[in-house]
């Protein structure tokens, strides 16, 4: 038996014995950092022994040939099943052939020992050459460490070749490292918060720690032209958090390697349970269950990810001229409160963050501009949080900032930053339970908080998406009156997942109530958010039934009730599914969701005239009677015969006010109420029905320069009409002249009672207005439907929106002897979408009248149309 064979057998025993001892020590509560250092030392001793047996009895020989540890081995981080990165370094091109046999034998022995070797053989000159196809090799040299052979050769590599390579190729190295890292992050959905994270390659994993170190090292070497002190490389402010994260992750990765018996870095659910039980990396911490342990994991991963992302952003800035230009352009968005340097936000007066309003404005700025917070800004925020915790902002002020932040394009990133800094759970404690919460199911890929942020992000991304499905849903999003309520509902929809029990919806609903109290939400807004949270699974459930079945559509649409809620629920469902995992929203599901949406939207428009009766068993009616027991008769009289749609569109307080106005008709035959609601005005008219009524009011508003964006008209069994017009004030007449509010009401009353001529008023207005060229031409489409209502004929008109349109259309309808029973008027961009339920002499419109009305409308609305 030759000496190498004897050595092999000894080394195999040594390796097995030492590996078992390392595992034993780790299992008895040892630390990962100790285990990797010990494995490194064991492997190193084996290599040296083989070197002396195969290459040179003198460990510092032969000349011009050296054995170098690179990559993880070079760093001294040999995890239990990590590969061993080795470089066989020689001085010149000719020596490779002579060394080939020795290198082969050396490697063969290591493989026979079942060590996984990743060897490379290079000359010194080759090491100094940058290969864009193998950036990893250049990066691995940053951790090079001498093992055996020619010390002088190794010195030339470390002290000259590598610093020269880094100085010369700094920009390429950083750019490539950035690309490799971004592509790796992309594979993991760009988030730390996976239910089963990969502790090495996932965002915030050990690889990110290395990336942060390499970026800082390359940057420092370029400046110094030599090796810097490694202890000074990473940002001082983050060093403590990074050291703790590194210890924890090293222990976790060792645990996984030992547990799986192979190079597998996935923190599976079973592994999480065991890690929590054994308190891996957290012997001094109170750990009740796997969720607690995972929160620790995510906390450390978040710290690593934060620093690596920051360095990835900051360091290329110093090199790329395009990047600098872009950042210089971004720095122009600086404000008197916040300055922007290299894409990072700094606070001009750091003490100003003591003011909660400034803090909220900071995150609004972040959400608006898509920028990151600088380390110093984050540090300042962390400092002010304890004082903020005693009296956190709440009520209308908090909601004002929150809703504006939620509506900004980068809202999800701002929410993530608020969450990472613990500001979000401080402002909205309802979200505390879902922070980094792992809920195990086979579909979700992310923690509950990240799922919610991602859902919000998907909605914002709709605007820039070019896919067919996204464009359709993006159109719906643009039509929403209050998108912030949808975003708030998305933030809260799974907030109950931390609560025990199977049904998280009830718990989420409770959190929604307390959150609505905290934000002092307007009752109608509270009801909308509450509805969305409560119903967030309804549309998915309806999709599992037949989306083409009219009974399924009817049942679902009736539960939703009004088109605005349908749009919100549809978008919530879309975002919720899409944020489950990257593959969850298949074209199949998007198609089903869209079909269900349009079928339900059509149903809602075509079933609006089901009438209410005072003795109906309706929860809203019961609620109304309980609120106003004395006024019960008054309310019953008013509601009798109104369409059920009326109750779905108006809240309880509106109904009570309308009933009171109706009761006053004996004193004044025209009851008007005008108020400003959000970004538009709302005019409510209650009077007895008469010809040309809806047309006259539309005309009067148009004559005042108001742009009607939405309207609805209903009438009860006694012929009392409730018309509501929502309009914008194009010339700011009402905003700038308070007395004009009263004059507008008087003017409308005069038109209704015949004391003023609306057509003359309108002519004056239209004459004084220039006709602006429209960007989008909308062809007029007119459709009659006799089947959808038992009492009326439905008319749907789609046409180009323009001043006075509603007046023109409704005048034609009245001229043809038709009565408007119900009107549902909407605008979508330049398109007016008007649905009217019409009768003539108390019955549906006959074919001749429909044909005549069709002709009249086409003539009036679209003069260029041929017929």
């Amino acid at each position, binding site marked *: 038996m030759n000496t190498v064979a004897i050595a092999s057998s000894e080394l195999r025993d040594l390796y097995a014995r030492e590996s078992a001892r390392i595992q034993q020590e780790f299992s008895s509560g040892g630390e990962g950092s100790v285990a990797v250092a010990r494995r490194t030392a064991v492997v190193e001793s084996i290599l040296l022994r083989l070197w002396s047996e195969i290459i040179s009895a003198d460990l510092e020989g032969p000349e011009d040939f050296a054995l170098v540890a690179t990559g993880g081995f070079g760093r001294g981080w040999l995890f239990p099943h990590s590969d061993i990165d080795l470089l066989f370094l020689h001085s010149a091109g000719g020596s490779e052939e002579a060394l080939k046999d020795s290198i082969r034998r050396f490697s063969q022995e290591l493989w026979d020992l079942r060590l996984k070797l990743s060897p490379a053989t290079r000359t010194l000159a080759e090491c100094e050459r940058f290969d864009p196809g193998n950036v990893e090799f250049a990066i691995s040299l940053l951790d090079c460490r001498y093992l055996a052979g020619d010390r002088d050769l190794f010195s030339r590599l470390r002290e000259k070749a590598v610093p020269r390579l880094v100085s010369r190729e700094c920009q390429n190295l950083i750019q490539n490292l950035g690309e490799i890292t971004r592509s790796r992050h992309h594979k993991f959905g760009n988030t730390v918060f996976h239910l089963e994270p990969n502790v090495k390659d996932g965002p915030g994993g050990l690889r990110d720690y290395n990336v942060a170190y390499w970026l800082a090292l390359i940057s420092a070497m370029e400046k110094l032209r030599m090796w810097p002190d490694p202890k000074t490389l990473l940002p001082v402010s983050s060093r403590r958090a990074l050291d703790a994260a590194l210890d924890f992750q090293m222990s976790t990765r060792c645990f996984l390697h030992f547990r799986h018996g192979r190079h597998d870095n996935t923190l599976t659910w079973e592994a999480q349970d065991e890690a929590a039980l054994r308190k891996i990396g957290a012997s001094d911490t109170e750990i009740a269950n796997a969720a607690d342990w995972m929160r620790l994991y995510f906390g450390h991963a978040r710290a690593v990810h934060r620093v690596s992302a920051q360095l990835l952003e900051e360091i290329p800035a110093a090199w790329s001229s395009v990047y600098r230009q872009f950042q210089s352009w971004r720095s122009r968005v600086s404000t008197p409160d916040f300055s922007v340097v290299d894409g990072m936000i700094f606070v001009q007066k750091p003490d100003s963050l003591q003011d909660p309003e400034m803090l909220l404005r900071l995150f609004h700025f972040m959400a608006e501009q898509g920028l990151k917070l600088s380390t110093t800004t984050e540090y300042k925020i962390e400092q002010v949080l304890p004082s903020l915790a005693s009296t956190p902002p709440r009520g209308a002020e908090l909601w004002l900032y929150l809703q504006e932040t939620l509506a900004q394009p980068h809202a999800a990133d701002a929410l993530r930053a608020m969450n990472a800094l613990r500001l979000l759970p401080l402002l909205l404690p309802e979200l505390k339970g879902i922070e980094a919460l792992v809920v195990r199911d086979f579909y979700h890929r992310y923690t509950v908080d990240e799922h919610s942020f991602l859902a919000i992000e998907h909605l914002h991304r709709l605007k820039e998406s070019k896919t067919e499905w996204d464009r359709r849903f993006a159109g719906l999003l643009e039509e929403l009156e209050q998108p912030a309520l949808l975003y708030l509902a998305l933030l809260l929809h799974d907030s109950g997942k931390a609560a025990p029990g199977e049904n998280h919806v009830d718990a989420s609903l409770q959190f929604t109530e307390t959150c609505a109290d905290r934000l002092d939400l307007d009752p109608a807004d509270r009801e909308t958010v509450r509805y969305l949270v409560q119903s967030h699974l309804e549309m998915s459930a309806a999709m*599992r039934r*037949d*989306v083409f079945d009219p009974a399924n559509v009817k049942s679902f649409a009736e539960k939703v009730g009004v088109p605005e809620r349908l749009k919100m629920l549809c978008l919530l469902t879309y975002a919720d599914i899409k944020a489950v995992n990257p593959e969850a929203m298949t074209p199949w599901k998007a198609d089903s969701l*869209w*079909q269900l949406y349009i079928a339900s939207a059509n149903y809602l428009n075509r079933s609006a005239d089901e009438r209410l009766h005072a003795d109906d068993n309706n929860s809203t009616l019961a609620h109304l009677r309980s609120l106003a027991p004395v006024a019960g008769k008054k309310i019953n009289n008013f509601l009798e015969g109104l369409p059920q749609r009326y109750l779905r569109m108006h809240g309880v307080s509106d109904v009570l006010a309308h009933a009171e106005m109706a009761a006053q008709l004996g004193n004044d035959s025209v009851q008007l109420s005008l108020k400003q609601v959000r970004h538009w005005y709302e005019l409510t008219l209650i009077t007895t029905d008469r010809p040309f009524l809806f047309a006259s009011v539309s005309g009067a508003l148009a004559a005042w320069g108001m742009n009607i964006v939405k309207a609805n008209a209903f009438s009860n069994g006694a012929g009392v009409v409730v018309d509501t017009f929502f309009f914008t004030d194009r010339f700011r007449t009402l905003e700038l002249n308070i007395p004009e509010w009263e004059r507008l009401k008087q003017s409308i009353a005069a038109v209704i009672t015949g004391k003023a001529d609306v057509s003359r008023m309108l002519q004056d207005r239209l004459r004084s207005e220039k006709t602006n060229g429209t960007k989008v031409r909308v062809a007029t*489409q007119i459709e009659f439907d006799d089947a959808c209502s038992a009492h009326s004929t439905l008319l749907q008109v789609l046409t180009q929106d323009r001043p006075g349109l509603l007046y023109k259309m409704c005048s034609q309808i009245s001229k043809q002897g038709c009565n408007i029973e119900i009107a549902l008027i909407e605008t979508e961009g330049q398109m007016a979408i008007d649905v009217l339920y019409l009768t003539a002499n108390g019955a549906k419109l006959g074919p001749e009248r429909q044909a005549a009305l069709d002709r009249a409308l086409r003539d009036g609305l679209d003069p260029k149309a041929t017929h």
Partner: protein
Amino acid sequence: MTKVEAIIQVSKLDVVKDALHEIGVEGMTVFEARGHGRQKGHTEFYRGREYTVDLIPKVKLEIVLADDMVEKVVKAITTASRTGKIGDGKIFLSRIDDAIRIRNEERGDGAL
């Protein structure tokens, strides 16, 4: 061994799954599918635009079974998914040569 491929209505998936579990079938693969047989497409108008669905959403189940289970499974699927209308779907049966459980390389009926 036989492979059962059943194309059924989306709304029938849950009841079919339950019916199969009742007769002892635990494993199945479900695909989102689209298609039509004699049942034609569907057209809906929304805001003046026509949305036509030529291929109706369906789900496809695939189950590989020991031969003695096939008739029971076919019966369970047909009973659970039948509405009597066009569009209820189809079941296809085909022979399978062998099955291998990846975890332990067990073969034949034992691997199912």
